[in-house]
């Protein structure tokens, strides 16, 4: 026996192939359609799953090794940050409101991504994408948990984070991110991949994480910075999966192009609408600003996304139609969004405020064409009224868009003084939209969006009061009942930052921590 013949050294690619697609086989005791029942109904034609190019070739042993190293580092920092009262080193307590928005709005989506990728990984009949999807699934539960664990310490000292899971399923503005992900996961597996893997991860996630995380670093939040960057290190794998899926579908059959293009158009818009919250966070909620929303959009979408769509042009893919309107909106988005939360500051689980003079000047400088003309007068009026003890709290519920579920706050593309109204009739009912794009999405799948759980309408139907509430009883206070249903504590979680418990505690604690007596 020739024991000493040196073995042929396999390349990374060959080895990885044995470790993934080599494991798979064509079933014969059950039909392939029964094993993968969701693979065909969307109309995507795949002829040869073996043509799939694995983007990163990470086997499980390497995965465990590197991920454990990341986790060790991350939890060491989380522990140190908690032990040293790291929360007192943030620029000022207003910053903590970004963290509240993140935990209530984003972390539950990470969890949804975990379950969504488990589902899609189970359903895609190719071994390559299955492994990549399942790896993403387990990464996403990581993100949800590291966020909860990092932010757990803030919850101990500040208000508004205390029941984030309960709130995510109920609170009016959180139905925006929730419905976004519900929409993606209820679509077929291929659309999910375009929605989350491509549009969100590849095209938009940089806009969520890089500014948020750099913003955290800039504002002294080492905890959030660390989980943020640690999560991003997985995103690189996720992004390449998203891009690979698009290329793969387009290369498999020319009939896939119009379907994929429609999904890209839809999800670029859905995703950008969700990022409205990020826009306002960057321009209004970070006490020390890193870059404006408009600048972030230009770097991460116009420049980077532009390169991507130029590259995809060879498949016939074009830039989503909505980009033209988004480009017009970038001057206005953050201001209109912040104004909305300022309006409804009594029903939000974080604090709102008017920017101080320096901050307004920064906004003027960053938005020379829009801020002074349209938004400064609004903010100054509110500031002056608040100083007179007449802080504005809008107590009448807003009209919502049927698709993105955001209050109808967006203005006509090109005219920031006119609210953009669109409507459609479907069967016996009228439906209203914030934009042409949301309307188009509805008209393509009305059966889906007529189911939307619109928070305002649900309140009026009487579905958002604590169990046992009698709305006909004398002295019934609907706002109080809705906040009770949300598990929001009036006077602690909501209202203006000025005078809040967070503000008082932070000042007192930091005083103790930085004084020498």
């Amino acid at each position, binding site marked *: 026996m020739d024991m000493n013949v040196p073995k042929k050294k396999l*390349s*990374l*690619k060959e080895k990885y192939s044995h470790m993934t697609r080599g494991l798979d086989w064509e079933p014969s005791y059950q039909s392939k359609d029964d094993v993968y029942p969701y693979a065909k109904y969307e109309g995507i034609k795949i002829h040869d799953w073996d043509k799939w190019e694995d*983007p*990163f*070739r*990470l086997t499980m042993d*390497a995965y465990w090794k*590197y991920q454990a*190293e*990341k986790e060790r580092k991350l939890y060491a920092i989380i522990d140190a940050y908690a032990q040293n009262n790291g929360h007192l080193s943030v620029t000022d307590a207003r910053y903590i409101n970004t963290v509240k928005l993140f935990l209530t709005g984003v972390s539950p989506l990470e969890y949804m991504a975990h379950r969504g990728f488990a589902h899609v990984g189970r359903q895609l009949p190719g071994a390559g994408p299955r492994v990549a999807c399942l790896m993403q699934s387990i990464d996403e539960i990581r993100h949800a948990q590291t966020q909860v664990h990092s932010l757990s310490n803030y919850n101990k000292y500040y208000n508004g984070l205390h029941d984030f899971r309960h709130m995510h399923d109920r609170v009016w503005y959180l139905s925006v991110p929730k419905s976004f992900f519900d929409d993606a996961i209820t679509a077929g597996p291929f659309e999910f991949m375009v929605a989350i893997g491509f549009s969100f991860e590849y095209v938009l996630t*940089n806009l969520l*994480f*890089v500014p948020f*995380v*750099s913003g955290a*670093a*800039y504002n002294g939040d080492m905890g959030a*910075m660390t989980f943020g*960057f640690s999560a*991003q*290190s*997985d*995103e*690189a*794998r996720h*992004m*390449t999966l998203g*891009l690979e899926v698009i290329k793969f579908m387009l290369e498999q059959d020319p009939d896939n192009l119009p379907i994929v293009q429609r999904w890209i158009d839809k999800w670029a818009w859905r995703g950008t609408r969700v990022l409205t919250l990020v826009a306002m966070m960057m321009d209004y909620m970070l006490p020390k600003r*890193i870059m404006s929303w408009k600048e972030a959009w230009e770097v991460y979408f116009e*420049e*980077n996304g*532009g*390169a*991507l769509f*130029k*590259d995809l*042009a*060879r498949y016939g893919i074009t830039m989503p139609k909505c980009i033209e309107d988004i480009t017009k909106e970038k001057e206005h988005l953050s201001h209109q969004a912040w104004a909305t939360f300022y309006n409804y500051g009594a029903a939000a689980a974080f604090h709102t405020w008017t920017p101080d003079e320096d901050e307004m000047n920064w906004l003027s400088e960053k938005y020379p064409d829009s801020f002074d003309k349209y938004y400064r007068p609004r903010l100054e009026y509110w500031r002056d009224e608040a100083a007179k003890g007449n802080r504005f709290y809008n107590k009448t519920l807003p009209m919502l868009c049927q698709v993105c579920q955001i209050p109808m706050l967006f203005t006509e593309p090109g005219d920031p003084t006119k609210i953009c109204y669109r409507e459609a009739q479907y069967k016996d009912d009228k439906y209203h939209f914030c934009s042409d794009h949301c309307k188009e999405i509805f008209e393509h799948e009305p059966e889906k969006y007529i189911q939307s759980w619109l928070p305002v309408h649900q309140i009026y139907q009487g579905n958002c009061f604590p169990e046992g509430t009698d709305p006909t009883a004398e002295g019934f206070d609907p706002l109080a009942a809705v906040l009770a249903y949300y598990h929001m504590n009036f006077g602690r979680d909501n209202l203006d930052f000025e005078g809040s418990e967070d503000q008082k505690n932070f000042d007192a604690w930091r005083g103790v921590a930085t004084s020498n007596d």
Partner: protein
Amino acid sequence: MSNVFLALQANEETRAIIEAITEDNPHAVVHPSPAMVKIDAEGSLTVRRETIEALIGRSFDLQELHINLISLSGHIDETDDELTLHWNA
């Protein structure tokens, strides 16, 4: 040709990686920002194992990049020796 980019956390481990990348990619432009470094390069960008190894004095598995990677753009080609990002158009 469009830019590809690679963003890494800024720390002791990535110092040598960034140095190696700039050595191997003279056309790359390094942008430091809080806690991270973004490297832009027109057309393509290559990370070479051997260059990194020469700088750190130990063997380096290119998959170790994952630990400190923040984001990237472009198509990826990965071998035992090189990781390349590129656009086709």
